[in-house]
Each structure stands twice: as structure tokens, then as C-alpha cells.
């Protein structure tokens, strides 16, 4: 089952507003530019890959492609948790690669004005291994904006929890 994000596009971004896919990992809401997300799907069966980096849950077959699955809980330093009906896989594309990011849930597609996004505090940015590009605050909510490239590229370097 697939929840296609692109079909739900809001009116074209006006000025400096961009669409984001929001999802949660360990109680925190994160956002990825929807441009980077190909689609969001439910996870059925993940085939584990021996000797892969700790945050790599395994591989899945998605729309004709063999796609690695990065467990974002492990990627961000939290404990693994059993998958449930809310678990979602965000298939992101970056420089020809397709990588699945496993989140606790992903339910929102929202436009965030650039003005609502501030660069991450120096201390937080350092701790998070640079995968945060900013912190969005709007409607009494806080959303951490992720850098697709950093989440994927440095995934192999994350040690086991």
C-alpha cells in the first residue's frame, strides 16, 4: 500500500514557502523537503543484510528497486522498537540513490515558510552529527528539518546503540 505524496501537492509554493513531509521518530517531529521524498509506504517485510551498518535494517523491494532501509531510531541514537501499523518507510532519492528511511509514523504533508526555519543551535547541530539543517517553529510546533544527504551519506558511520 502506498501513500503518494506528490498527488496531494498544495497550491504551488508562494514566495519562500516549501512543502515538507513530516514524520516522527522517538516522539520528535522531523521534516524532509517533499522534493527529496519519492513516496511513503507501509513496511511489510524487511530482509536483513549481514554485516551491514547497525542502522541499516535491511532491504526491501519497492517499485522495482532494491532499496536499503535505514532505521531512523538507530540512526538518531535511540533504541530499536518493533514495527507496527503506523511505521512508515519514506523512500528518498539522492544523487541517483534510493534509500528508505524508517520512521515511527508519517502522516503530514505541510508547507512551511522559510521564515519559520532557523538554523539549529550550535550545540544541537554539533550533537546531531550535522544532519539538521534547521528548526522550524510554527503554530506552537517544533519541527526539526533534516538534510537528506547527511542522513543517508553518514548512515554507514553510525555506531551500534
Amino acid at each position: 500500500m502506498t501513500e503518494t505524496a506528490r498527488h496531494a501537492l498544495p497550491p504551488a509554493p508562494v514566495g519562500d514557502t516549501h512543502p515538507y513531509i513530516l514524520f516522527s521518530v522517538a516522539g520528535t517531529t522531523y521534516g524532509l523537503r517533499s522534493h527529496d521524498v519519492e513516496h511513503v509506504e507501509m513496511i511489510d517485510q524487511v530482509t536483513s543484510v549481514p554485516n551491514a551498518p547497525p542502522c541499516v535494517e535491511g532491504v526491501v523491494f519497492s517499485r522495482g528497486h532494491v532499496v536499503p532501509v535505514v532505521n531512523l531510531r538507530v540512526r538518531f541514537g535511540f533504541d530499536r522498537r518493533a514495527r507496527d501499523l503506523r511505521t512508515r518507510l519514506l523512500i528518498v532519492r539522492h544523487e541517483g540513490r534510493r534509500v528508505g528511511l524508517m520512521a515511527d509514523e508519517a502522516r503530514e504533508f505541510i508547507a512551511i515558510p522559510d521564515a519559520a526555519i532557523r538554523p539549529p543551535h550550535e550545540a544541537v547541530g554539533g550533537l546531531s552529527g550535522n544532519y539538521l539543517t534547521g528548526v522550524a517553529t510554527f503554530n506552537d510546533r517544533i519541527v526539526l528539518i533534516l538534510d537528506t544527504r547527511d542522513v543517508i551519506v553518514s548512515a554507514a558511520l553510525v555506531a551500534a546503540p
Partner: protein
Amino acid sequence: LPAVRLAALFGIATEPKRRLHAIVVGVDRAAIALLVDRIVGQREIVVKTITDPLIRVDGVSGATELGDGRLVLILDVMSLSRGLRTRTDGSVRDRTGTTSGVPA
């Protein structure tokens, strides 16, 4: 014939078993026996090469889809048997004592 527990090679903790299945691959001096838990079946497949660095690991060359959404990893026998010649972690047991170059 050198016999290798695939689970040990892949760093998977398993219960010691009395019975394992051996799949003999390769020919002549390059032949090895891969010890596995269970033989599931035999079928013709289309192999999709694994290219993403996150899942490119030694001994696995590709994957195939079984038709029901499940992915099956395809072993790279050449790389597995090559890797064995340099391993010393005890996952290889030389049953015959005649093979040289393989850690016992």
C-alpha cells in the same frame, strides 16, 4: 572440503545445531561447503545487482524478489571463498586437513 557455517561468516548468533545442510559450491580446490539451517527450494530468478553502499557487503552480490514482495539475497560464491582464505576467526573448519591456505 572446507565447511563454513554461513551464520558465523555473517556474524549471526545461532543455537548450536546437530544437523545442518551443506551446499557444496565451486569446483576442484576452490570447492567449499556452505552450512545452512534449511534448504527452502530451488528456482530460476532474475538477479538485481546491489549497488547502494549501505548494503554492499562482502559475499552478497544481489537480490531477487520472490513474487510476494519478499527479497532474497544472492550470495557471491567467489567472494565468499576468496574471503575464507584470509579469515582466521575460526568460522572455517577444515575437515580433511589436506587443504592448505585455509585457516583451520
